[in-house]
């Protein structure tokens, strides 16, 4: 197992160690209050892990304040976990790497596995001694913006991986079933390969083995020999795929396009492919 992953046993044993901070980040922002890993902080992706004015990732100063309030300094080992097989835990992981945090890990299996194993939960909100955190300059080698994606389409210089469901990829639906539609057009970015994010995971929420992942991506011609850009609808599912490709498969040049389909699928004049 790559050292960016820890299992539930490790968290049960070391989650409260000095220098370790466990943080829950969920799609369902009410889950933390229902019960969380004892001692874990809870971050709300809708308010704390983004810029709430401009559409963007969390600004550096805001991240510094969040981490400081969570008792995290630059040397802290941050262990992230969450619901939906760590969707938004991966989103937080990606942003922490963009800002250069060294030791970030994900609890393999996330909240699902912790619950299924009947492990302790707490509804107490822990308080942390404030710490000082200094964010690094954003590492844009991890993040793709629209012009780069457009160039990738035009020049075929990067492989595009669409991690949404097959029905979103085909344009049959415009959003995950039951969720609001957030685009004007359905389909996918021309040339993108469909590798739904869920294929990275086992039924218990843990990541598949590196060999299985290599076979999964290799079957679509995604081998890491060329740059890869992953996208979904808003960038969180593709964070998980980005994590798998970069840290579990060791691809050197992988970017997350967080503009994703809510950007591309709303662009006037953008080319859209439907199978």
């Amino acid at each position, binding site marked *: 197992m790559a050292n960016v992953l820890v299992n539930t046993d490790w968290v049960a044993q070391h989650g409260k160690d000095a220098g370790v901070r466990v943080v829950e980040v969920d799609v369902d922002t009410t889950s933390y209050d229902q*019960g969380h890993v004892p001692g874990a902080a809870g971050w709300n992706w809708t308010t704390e892990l983004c810029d709430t004015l401009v559409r963007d990732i969390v600004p550096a100063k805001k991240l510094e304040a969040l981490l400081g309030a969570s008792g995290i300094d630059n040397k802290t080992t941050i262990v992230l976990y969450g619901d*939906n097989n760590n969707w938004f835990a991966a989103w937080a992981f990606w942003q922490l790497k963009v800002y250069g945090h060294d030791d970030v890990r994900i609890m393999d299996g996330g909240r699902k596995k912790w619950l299924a194993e009947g*492990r302790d939960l707490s509804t107490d909100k822990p308080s942390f001694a404030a710490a000082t955190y200094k964010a690094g300059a954003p590492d844009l080698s991890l993040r793709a913006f629209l012009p780069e994606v457009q160039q990738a389409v035009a020049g075929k210089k990067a492989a595009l991986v669409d991690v949404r*469901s097959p029905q979103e990829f085909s344009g049959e*639906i*415009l959003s995950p*079933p039951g*969720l609001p539609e957030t685009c004007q057009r359905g389909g996918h970015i021309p040339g993108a390969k469909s590798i739904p994010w*869920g294929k990275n995971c086992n039924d218990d929420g843990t990541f598949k083995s590196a060999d299985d992942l290599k076979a999964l991506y290799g079957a679509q011609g995604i081998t890491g020999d060329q740059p890869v850009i992953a996208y979904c609808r808003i960038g969180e599912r593709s964070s998980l795929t980005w994590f798998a490709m970069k840290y579990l498969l060791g691809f050197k040049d992988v970017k997350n396009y967080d503009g994703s389909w809510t950007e591309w699928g709303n662009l006037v004049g953008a080319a859209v492919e439907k*199978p």
Partner: protein
Amino acid sequence: MKPEDYSRVQQEIGGWAVTVETYKLGDVYHCTIANVDPGARVARADGKTREEAESRAIEKATRYLAQTRKFEV
């Protein structure tokens, strides 16, 4: 405290495959319904019993899933 009576089953609501995850924490049952693919949460509800939590969540999920439009491809 520990989660009790945990279950996670797959079923169909309004033609969509969903997972229904339920567990008891303290005196409250929590139920979350997510679509199988892509795995996004559709609805959640609490109740004093498993049946109450699940029926409330299923009622909400049925309503939300019915709003999903399908397009010809």
